[in-house]
């Protein structure tokens, strides 16, 4: 754990006890089994807003506390432990980052206070295909006399059913594959021509497919500069990746704790199974790997807070290392629990399912290893 400030430690303790008491994995399971379309419970979300988590990144002048990304990570890690489902990440991290990084004063004033009080729920609508590849953006935005007309579709839009405003990456010039010619737009989720449908994913979280059919966006809906949205999009994505790393750490750390507990309590051959060296060593390797991954995860969040110039390297390192650790940890969670691990009644499966989704979001391990290689000049 990074050397946390007093305030950060307080927030962590608060998040830990709130998540384990008010929003434990049992709540997530109940939500899953209820099949509600929104995929999070309103009271859970209301309590998060109440605790001020939606304002962690938002400057004080817009109603937030501006405590930064490491602090946000501390909260996400605790939520990741319990698989707590909420739009906190989509709206208050990704959405707020987009407005803070790319928005003009008017956009900040109109949106950020509402992100903080929860009356606006933002989400980024980016991916169009089955692999994360921002430059492949093809959804078209054509200029018209009063603004733009959007046509195309987005998939795997996080909390897309609950969102009130979509931050849409669109192509204003060039062709799919070019980084030039991408622009960001703010589109009301209930605008005419926007059609949303929920997707049923293995992790039971809220994702939507969103179709844009001649959707009219006024010129003040352009977020950032025309055609030059790619760089700021990457900056937004790096914040998303770093934040997701913290959630992944929580999910993996909980999987580790469950496994360690089982190693100490399950008996076979007259001894606890943790006394078999094959398993003891495996736990030792997993623990070491968790420590190494944590360093990368925290370094990425700190690089963002410090405004370092190697944020891209740091986030790719974090996402790749966290992906690898969570992948292995989620497999070992099942393996070391034996038959119990395979049952739906036990929680291991929920962690395994969530693990693969987190691993693939915003670029999987391979994506970030390739990106890291490119950034290092290989």
């Amino acid at each position, binding site marked *: 754990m990074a050397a946390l400030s007093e305030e950060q430690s307080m927030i962590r303790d608060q998040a830990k006890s709130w998540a384990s008491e008010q929003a434990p994995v049992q709540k997530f399971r109940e939500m899953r089994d209820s099949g509600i379309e929104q995929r999070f419970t309103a009271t859970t979300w209301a309590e998060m807003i109440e605790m001020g988590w939606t304002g962690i990144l938002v400057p004080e002048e817009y109603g937030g506390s501006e405590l930064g990304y490491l602090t946000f990570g501390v909260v996400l890690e605790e939520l990741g432990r319990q698989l707590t489902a909420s739009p906190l990440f989509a709206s208050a991290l990704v959405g707020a980052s987009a407005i803070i990084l790319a928005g003009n004063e008017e956009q900040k004033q109109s949106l950020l206070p509402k992100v903080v009080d929860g009356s606006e729920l933002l989400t980024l609508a980016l991916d169009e295909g089955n*692999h994360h590849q921002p430059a492949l953006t093809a959804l078209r935005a054509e200029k018209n006399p009063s603004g733009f007309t959007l046509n195309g579709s987005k*998939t795997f839009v996080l909390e897309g059913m609950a969102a009130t405003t979509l931050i849409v990456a669109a192509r204003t010039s060039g062709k799919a594959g070019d980084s030039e010619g991408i622009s960001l737009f703010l589109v009301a989720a209930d605008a005419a021509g926007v059609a949303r449908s929920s997707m049923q994913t293995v992790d039971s979280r809220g994702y939507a497919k969103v179709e844009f059919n001649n959707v009219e966006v006024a010129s003040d809906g352009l977020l950032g500069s025309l055609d030059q949205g790619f760089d700021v999009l990457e900056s937004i994505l790096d914040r998303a990746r770093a934040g997701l790393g913290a959630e992944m750490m929580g999910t993996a750390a909980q999987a580790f704790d469950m496994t360690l507990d089982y190693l100490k309590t399950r008996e076979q051959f007259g001894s606890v199974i943790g006394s078999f060296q094959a398993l003891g060593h495996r736990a030792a390797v997993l623990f070491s790997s968790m420590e190494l991954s944590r360093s990368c995860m925290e370094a990425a969040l700190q690089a963002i807070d410090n405004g370092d110039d190697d944020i891209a390297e740091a986030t790719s390192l974090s996402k790749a290392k966290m992906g690898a650790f969570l992948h292995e940890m989620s497999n070992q969670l099942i393996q070391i629990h034996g038959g119990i691990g*395979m*049952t739906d*009644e036990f929680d291991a499966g929920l962690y395994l399912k969530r693990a693969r989704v987190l691993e*693939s979001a915003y670029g999987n391990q391979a994506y970030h*290893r390739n990106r890291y290689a490119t950034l290092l000049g290989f």
Partner: protein
Amino acid sequence: MSESMQPDQFRTSVREWVEGNFPSSLSSYVPSMEDDNDGSLPDLELWRQRLADKGWGAPTWPTEYGGAGLSHPEAKVVGQEINRVGGFNPIPALAGMGVTMVGPTIMEYGTDDQKARHLPSIASGAVRWCLGLSEPNAGSDLASLNTKAEDKGDHFILNGQKVWTSGAHISQWCGALVRTDPDKKKRDGISFVMLPMNREGVETRPIKLISGASPFCETYFNNARADKADLLGPLNQGWSVVKRLLQHERQSQTSASSGGTKRESLQDLAKRYVETNADGSIADADLRSRIILHLMDDQAHKLTVGRITAEARGNVEVSAAASILKNSATNVSQARSELSLELMGSQGIGWEGDDFNEQELNTVREWLWGKAISIYGGSFEVQNNIISKNILGLPETTQKG
């Protein structure tokens, strides 16, 4: 027939028969272990019956027990010819644990009466068997099992709980490992009994898996009767019987490799799901090299199966090498699932609904289900214990008693 025919003549005759008898309506059907022949597919029943009449459900078994008395190479030809027309042999799945495990063990340990009563209905796929071995506190350490069988003269009375019993809720018979002498050392007081699942006092409760289905159960014995005539092997010698049975299980799993005929190859999946260069190669160098590592592992596994079979001169014998093969088959099939998900990307994280096609959804379910392969039939770790002890002669540290 097999002695009088040349190999290619044999193949031709098999081909003709398969072409004339496999119902084409089944060619798009994907068989699974959970298939319950409930009569909803008349052609499946017809095909089962035709295969059973030929003895090709369990083709290497003697004809008197419902097999066809074929050699292993001949049986392989039958399998290949059935695959060639997009067909499958439904009998091993319909018989549950019958063809792969219980049958071969009865062949070895059973009385003539037991062989005559049980083997033909297994070979024809008419009777499904489950295996009640594991208990809540006896998994890898199977010998610590607690289910009691009291001797009542011509029968035993069973009391206890089994768990993870695959197919128990749809099986007609069960092979159960029970404690017949609580005073002897753990492994010396165990017997293997067989009993029908519709006996009074037998109850099953399906358990839902992470992949969604409920193919296994908790099985309870509450004063359930098992006839002495269905004790397999001598009293209190059940441990030897089950050791043999588990070798057959491993054996049956060693070939459970990546390449089912109905599965799309990773090369084809890659063409459809990831970006490729102009020359057709996968653009993502990292993914490409991991796919190749996997395909090399797959090939090494297949070659090793071939080599061990050849060294046994076509006489596929269960051996300690089965542990090596079980673990390598597991690695290959689990890696294949992970790579398939990765290739599909966000199309590979669907659970249900129209946003994902059937193949995508099946790939996810199969990935989840596949996590069990390194757990059942002796876990990955238990296989390694067997290799280090039985093949390498290293001292045993955990499996005492």
